[in-house]
């Protein structure tokens, strides 16, 4: 590491209507280092990097690259200065090839494309940094991990020596994460500056040389990785000590609540999304389903809750066949659902917190009188839940869209858990939530397990699935690759299953329904 900084941001201030996203932020990164930018949601990480990449202009403060002051009016200026950014959502043209995507937007040959030269250069870069990808493949043919490699290649091809990655591991399997990390390592060795936005502590400890922690738009501290620990980082991020590992009490399992038999269903695009999935979930059990998003998780949750027709197979809840029943009937059977899309499905953003809390309970006899709603009873009911679930809201009449992500999820949980579900289907229950909110959601799920609910937990976060679940299944392209007890599961094996390798029957793990 040299003493000459490649990036120096001083006194950066950026205000959005209603929020001070960045407040006097000083940030320095050096060539050859992997620098993690760690913080909760809304801490200002992405805003800061979007400023560095020229997407936003700071209200105050200055940026220097390699000791020279710069001012970017757009990402074009930033790219010209050797900055590259890989966004959370990839910016690739699906119908074009890798080589075409890499040259897209470059000025080097205005009319005639010399793709031959591009291919050679891509091959060189791929070789050098371990970014294996077929230059002539179309983007839509590639896996998410491969698409990310194309994004990185695009940056390197443009000669970027400062690379910003916004939550790059969110969409990857553990093996892909390992490949990505070795690529990042090689880039750092070549003298590139790698800036890595994340809120995952394990990753930070595994890959970063130095870590800058943001909280509430301010820098808490910049530390060297060997000098810190996950616990210390979590405390800096949240501002209070956090329980990183929850104690999972042993719970006696009861009767089978959910029985899924050879279920099949189509995706929104009318393609087979579930190709014969079978499993059971018992009282007092958390059954985890791991897998990279888009392998049938959403469809599975929707079939069980009656929101998507099954094209084959059966769903039984407490031994009653509810296949293709209406959602209303399934709710009456005691099924709670924490949907993946919080504001798109789980809540009505423009309506008040109270309206959202009674979204299912408004039919209850205690809250109604004939066709009328009992407004006083509802107010009391909602007040009680707001207190019980610690929903931070100015009042119960506040539109729910004004709440933070963690409080949105608390609102959904308050509604679903207060109905005392016999089965709770939780889909990505902590996605996008910060550590504090995640901790609260995990606690609530474990509490439900202790009280004897059956829980189907669908999540991309392998750590989450492993810590919470009693048994873990892996879903790949609409099929279950294997079911293992959580205490016997290892990340390697699950990672392979997430990538499509079925569990070997001879393994020392129990198997069911495959």
């Amino acid at each position, binding site marked *: 590491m040299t003493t000459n900084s490649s990036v120096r941001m001083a006194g950066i201030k950026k205000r959005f209507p209603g929020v001070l*996203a960045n407040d006097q932020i000083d940030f320095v990164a050096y060539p050859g280092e992997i620098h993690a930018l760690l913080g909760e949601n809304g801490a200002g*990480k*992405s805003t800061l990097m979007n400023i560095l990449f020229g997407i936003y202009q700071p209200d105050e403060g200055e940026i220097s690259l390699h000791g020279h002051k710069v001012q970017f009016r757009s990402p074009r200026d930033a790219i010209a200065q050797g900055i590259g950014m890989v966004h959370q959502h990839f910016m690739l043209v699906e119908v074009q090839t890798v080589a075409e995507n890499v040259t897209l937007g470059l000025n080097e040959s205005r009319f005639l494309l010399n793709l031959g030269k591009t291919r050679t250069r891509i091959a060189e870069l791929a070789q050098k940094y371990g970014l294996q990808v077929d230059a002539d493949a179309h983007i839509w043919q590639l896996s998410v991990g491969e698409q990310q490699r194309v994004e990185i290649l695009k940056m390197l091809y443009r000669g970027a020596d400062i690379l910003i990655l916004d939550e790059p591991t969110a969409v990857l399997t553990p093996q892909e994460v390992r490949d990505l990390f070795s690529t990042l390592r090689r880039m750092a060795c070549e003298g590139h500056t790698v800036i890595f936005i994340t809120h995952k502590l394990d990753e930070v400890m595994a890959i970063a040389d130095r870590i800058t922690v943001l909280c509430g738009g301010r820098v808490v501290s910049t530390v060297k990785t060997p000098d810190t620990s996950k616990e210390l980082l979590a405390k800096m991020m949240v501002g209070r000590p956090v329980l990183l590992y929850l104690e999972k009490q042993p719970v006696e399992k009861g009767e089978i609540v959910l029985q899924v038999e050879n279920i099949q269903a189509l995706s929104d695009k009318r393609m087979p999304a579930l190709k014969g999935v079978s499993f059971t979930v018992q009282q007092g059990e958390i059954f985890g389903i791991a897998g990279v998003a888009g392998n049938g998780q959403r469809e599975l949750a929707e079939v069980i809750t009656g929101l998507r027709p099954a094209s084959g197979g059966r769903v039984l809840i407490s031994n009653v066949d509810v296949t293709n029943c209406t959602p*209303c009937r399934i*709710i009456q059977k005691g099924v709670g659902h924490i*949907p993946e899309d919080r504001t798109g499905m789980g809540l*009505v953003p423009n309506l008040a917190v109270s*309206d959202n809390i009674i979204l299912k309970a*408004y039919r209850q006899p205690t809250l109604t009188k004939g066709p009328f709603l009992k407004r006083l009873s509802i107010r009391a009911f909602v007040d009680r839940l707001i207190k019980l679930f610690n929903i931070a809201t100015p009042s119960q009449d506040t539109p729910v869209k004004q709440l933070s992500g963690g409080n949105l999820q608390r609102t959904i949980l308050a509604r679903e858990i207060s109905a005392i579900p016999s089965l709770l289907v939780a889909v990505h229950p902590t996605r996008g939530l910060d550590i504090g909110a995640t901790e609260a959601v995990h606690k609530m799920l474990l509490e439900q397990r202790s009280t004897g609910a059956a829980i189907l937990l669908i999540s991309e976060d392998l750590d989450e699935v492993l810590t919470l679940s009693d048994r873990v299944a892996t879903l790949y392209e609409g099929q279950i690759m294997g079911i293992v007890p959580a205490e016997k599961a290892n990340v390697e094996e699950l990672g392979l299953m997430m990538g499509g390798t079925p569990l070997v029957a001879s393994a020392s793990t129990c198997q069911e329904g495959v």
Partner: protein
Amino acid sequence: MHIRIERRLTPSRLLTGLTLLLSLILSLIVGGMLLRAVGADPIKAYRAMLLGALGSKYSLSETLVKAIPLMLCGLGISVAFRMRFWNIGAEGQLAMGGIAAAGIALFVPPRFPGLSAWQLLPMIVAGGFAAGALWGLIPALLKAYIGVNEIITSLMLNYVAILLVEYLFYGPWKDPKGYGFPGTAEFPPAAWLPRLPGTRVHLGLVFALLAAGFIWLVLARTKWGYEIRVIGENPRAASYAGISIVRNVVLIMCLSGGLAGLAGAAEVTAIARRLTKGLTVGYGFTAIIVAWLAKLNPLAVLVVAFFLAALLVGGDQIQITMGLPAAVALILQGAILFFMLGGEMFRQYDIVVGRKPTASPEEKTQP
């Protein structure tokens, strides 16, 4: 200098009143310029309009007469719009209600002589409501079961119904003793919807007031109203919560079409007392504006309907007393609407001038 537009978090009450007042003033100014352009004195014209619409017992009652169908259709439209079901077929539903009422008034009494008004009028009211409801049900079912866009179907069905009215009074239902004039025979007195003595204001006003109260109660206090709000704001959340969208679309369109049908039935049995020209004069379309300006609030619909009716009657007045073209009233109506809907933007968005350009909050991404 840079100008950018930012969404306000909560539009203030004061601002709402101010924009309303300001848009009214601006539209009067623009209208005044237009009046001047056609050679009239704006002050005099406005005065004539005001007096013509509200200045005497007669003009006030005529304004009310025009307000009744606007109220009923406006209420029907606003409940459908609340659920984001874009029913723009009120005109056709009104026409069908008129046809049903006329059919009952013309063909029932001859077959059952001696029916009193107490027996005949409920049939007419129910028939008009049912016919409008059925007409409204067509786009509802098409939308609910096969996903056909209701804007297209409800709009197109207007023309079917309007032409059906004309076919009937030019053709099979034409009065044989009518000297060739288009129109049915006059209905028997038992089929006349009662009027307030000395005016043409009829029982439809009571229906409109009752309907507004009923809809307000449903929306604000009942389970059904809650379901309508949820579906209107987020249909996916409604399905997720087990609320049947199909059932609600069907119910709402029965109510929406029914109210328009009721307006049609009242119009033919209280005003013309026969089915003839002048039933489909655009109440169903103007009522869309009523519903929109009233922000879909059933009680506000009553006020806005009266206001727009006054504009219509006042427009007729200046046409008669000042010899101005009929289009002037329409232009004024357009100007008022333009400024009111334009003012809506200033109510919901803030315009910031002079600072450095930044991304709009929608583009803001947080980690």
